[in-house]
């Protein structure tokens, strides 16, 4: 006999108290115990609302009106509030900072069980067990304010799991984390799902990150279920709908006319091998990532020309574009990209050090220059010094040694767009002109805090630009966190417009696909110095971590980074 579903929805709909349209409508859904379900959809599609309904916050915490039926572990969410549903459903939100309640990790983990009136011995054992299961035993005696974002998110998951709920719902839990911590979190969830049988329902914009772990995808559009299928079938649906929700390798396959669509990089490589486009198991190992395009491999896409691949699709060497540089290579080691004599840099750091009085040196003599109109992605692991370098360029901090040169004003958009929005009405933030530039014309009366994440990001950028200019340089710090693909595409266009107006655009980002889409130069920071500097096709195509999904699938062949480039590379090989 089949187990009863852990989640069962029949015609469930919901409208926020202040909403003009239903946030959810006609949801019919069954989630099996022990399943791993990915909720996909663009911003505003209803993912978060559905997750909040699963834990009872909708309608009990947010108010509004619900219709139809939604049951979690046999409890109707219309009749049972979050307190009652908490026994069956653990919940993790986006921002780890505001879901950790207590000052110490041990107390935090104990809180849910103490609410249930569990005996002290049972609480202590459960805390120990969940800490060991999630690999955070070493954090038990730490204060929560001393934890990193990744550690804090793990603590939040442990706190949600400590009483062993049958269902764990997570709303974009990796959006505030760096890619390494995000990937680790997804695989941790997969392990919990497999070993404990905990059903997982997770909403994520980074489909490529979650798809290999999921065994089902539910895509929402306008608050309704638009697709409910296995990952491979979902990709087919997503590609047919324009590809906004498809992973880069799936789009590459679709553009190249290859089937089946891969749900992971491994599946993509297998598919390419099956099509004779990559060497098979007996065809020799794929060269290790070197930071430079891989060497020739007969009969594969690896031996293709890299020179014509530019993020913006132009022909010619990336090194010639807009900047004063001949193409260096990350593969040639840690030398900065050698620069030809050219125009005065728009902004430059000359041997810049930043040493904290009671801590380590964050920057160690960084040499960096951006030419007018140049589009640069600043990459590197957390703590590599990206944000600090941007703050130096803006003048928010002064180097302890070395100097910063600016040809004019520098704009900086910091990581949290909400920090820029301090007025009651959007029009007070950026004026009518700024609103129009942000694509928010006619929304001037709205409270900035009521705008969506993408809208806030666009508005904050206009606030930072202030209708001023011309800007010598515009710096953006992690502007794509939690942003869906449509908004990223819009940001790429905005960056292009700023660069065309003559501003050097420097963007600190972990998002390799985004970097490949907008940048003509990648500067890789590590331990406070530049360890790679060159065109995207060279820096990102052969990297291991700093590499796009398409580049990983193709093994760096042809310097292809994006789906379109990969498909073109494959297409040329198929023709040949």
């Amino acid at each position, binding site marked *: 006999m089949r187990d009863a579903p852990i989640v069962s929805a029949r015609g469930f709909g919901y409208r926020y108290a202040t909403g003009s349209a239903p946030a959810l409508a006609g949801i019919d859904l069954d989630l099996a115990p022990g399943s791993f379900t990915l909720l996909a959809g663009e911003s505003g599609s209803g993912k978060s609302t559905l997750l909040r309904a699963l834990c009872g916050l909708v309608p009990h915490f947010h108010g509004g009106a619900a219709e139809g039926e939604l049951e979690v572990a046999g409890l109707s969410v219309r009749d049972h509030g979050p307190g009652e549903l908490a026994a069956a459903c653990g919940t993790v939100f986006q921002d780890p900072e505001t879901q950790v309640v207590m000052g110490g990790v041990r107390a935090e983990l104990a809180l849910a069980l103490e609410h249930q*009136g569990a005996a002290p011995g049972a609480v202590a054992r459960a805390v120990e067990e969940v800490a060991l299961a999630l690999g955070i035993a070493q954090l038990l005696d730490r204060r929560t304010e001393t934890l990193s974002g990744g550690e804090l998110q793990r603590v939040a998951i442990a706190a949600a799991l400590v009483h062993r709920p049958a269902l764990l719902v997570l709303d974009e839990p990796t959006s505030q984390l760096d890619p390494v911590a995000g990937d680790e979190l997804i695989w941790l969830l997969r392990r919990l799902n497999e070993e404990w049988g905990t059903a997982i329902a997770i909403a994520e914009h980074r489909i490529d990150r979650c798809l290999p772990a999921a065994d089902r995808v539910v895509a929402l559009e306008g608050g309704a279920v638009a697709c409910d299928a296995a990952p491979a079938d979902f990709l087919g649906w997503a590609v047919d709908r324009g590809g906004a929700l498809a992973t880069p390798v799936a789009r590459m396959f679709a553009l190249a006319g290859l089937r089946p669509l891969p749900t992971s990089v491994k599946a993509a490589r297998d598919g390419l091998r099956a099509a004779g486009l990559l060497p098979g198991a007996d065809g020799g190992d794929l060269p290790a990532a070197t930071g430079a395009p891989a060497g020739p491999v007969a009969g594969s896409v690896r031996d293709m020309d890299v020179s014509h691949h530019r993020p913006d699709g132009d022909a010619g060497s990336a090194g010639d574009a807009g900047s004063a540089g001949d193409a260096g290579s990350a593969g040639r080691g840690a030398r900065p990209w050698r620069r030809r004599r050219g125009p005065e840099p728009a902004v430059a750091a000359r041997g810049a050090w930043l040493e904290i009085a009671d*801590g380590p040196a964050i920057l160690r003599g960084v040499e960096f220059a951006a030419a007018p109109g140049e589009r640069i992605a600043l990459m590197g692991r957390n703590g590599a010094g990206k944000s600090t370098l941007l703050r130096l360029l803006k003048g928010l901090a002064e180097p302890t040694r070395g100097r910063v040169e600016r040809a004019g004003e520098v704009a900086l958009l910091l990581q949290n767009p909400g920090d820029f929005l301090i007025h009651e009405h959007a029009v007070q933030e950026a004026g009518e002109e700024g609103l129009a530039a942000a694509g928010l014309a006619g929304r001037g009366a709205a409270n900035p805090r009521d705008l969506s994440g993408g809208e806030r990001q666009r508005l904050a950028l206009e606030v930072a630009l202030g209708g*001023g200019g011309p800007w010598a340089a515009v710096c953006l710090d992690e502007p794509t966190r939690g942003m869906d693909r449509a908004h990223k595409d819009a940001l790429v266009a905005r960056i292009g417009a700023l660069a065309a107006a003559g501003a050097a655009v420097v963007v600190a980002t972990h998002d390799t696909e985004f970097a490949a889409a907008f940048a003509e130069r990648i500067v890789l920071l590590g331990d406070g110095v530049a360890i790679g500097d060159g065109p995207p096709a060279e820096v990102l195509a052969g990297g291991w971590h700093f590499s796009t999904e398409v580049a990983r699938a193709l093994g760096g062949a042809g310097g292809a980074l994006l789906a379109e480039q990969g498909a073109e590379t494959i297409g040329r090989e198929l023709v040949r």
Partner: protein
Amino acid sequence: MSRGGATVGSARGPAGVPIPAYRPGSSPLHAARAGATAAFCLALALTAMLYSDPLVLGAVVAAVALAGVAAGVGAEIRRAALIALPLVVLVAVINPLVYRGGDTVLVRGFEILGRPLDITLEALVAGALAGLRVGAIVMAFGLFTACVDPDELLRMFRRVSYRSALTGALATRLVPVLARDALRIGDAGRCRPRPPGRLAVARATLAGALDRAVDVAAALEVRGYSAGGRPARRHRPWSRHDLRVAGAAAAIAVAAVAFAAAGAGAVETYPRIEVAAGPPELALCAVLLVAAALPFAGRAARLGVARA
């Protein structure tokens, strides 16, 4: 081309709020149960409240400093002292300005707000003693903040007043979060072409705090807060540190009350200064200092904590 950053200066890390804060430690005061350590600190504060005698107040300050240094939280005690300093000066300065008692006039005919005012030595000394008392109390609470695990303390109170204690826990947790928010919003303001005024930044920080509060409330709900269970009583055997710290707290409190009842530490400031500084006061000071050192005394205490 303008050049910035030529100035060599000290870099500032993430700015912390310069107030004492709890950090887990391995000292006997940290290892003892929260109730015992809290009682120890409160006993010292109680002593400061009961006495105006400069000898006794000095002994309280010395006892707090001694315990703080021995517990490895000397920096936190120093922070508390720095916080208290303006208050001490304020009290010491205001008293002679508003009180005209005392026989020893230092400045005659001084006029404030149209009122003639004599400044007397006695009023100055009384102000200084009041300031010293405030300083001692603030320092004792600094020791409390640095050594008492707020989670454990609040857990204790949750059994008595669940919602109030949880509100306290949240407030404790959110203070550093909001401090960081304010710093970030301030930085974002500096990134605007026209930086906003302080009032706008303060208002944005407050609005952000309300948003944070809503998020935290949602987090509490999904942790079963509305289920309303109270933590069960935890039977925890008394450790050596619990006994030593609680014993020291009892000794300080009993001595302070007993000596006060016996009339020790009497101070008269008006019309002339009379400060008791006899054997009872000296004995009380000795008790305070010995009791403050008691939790740290003995080989077992030190090794036991190191191995905990």
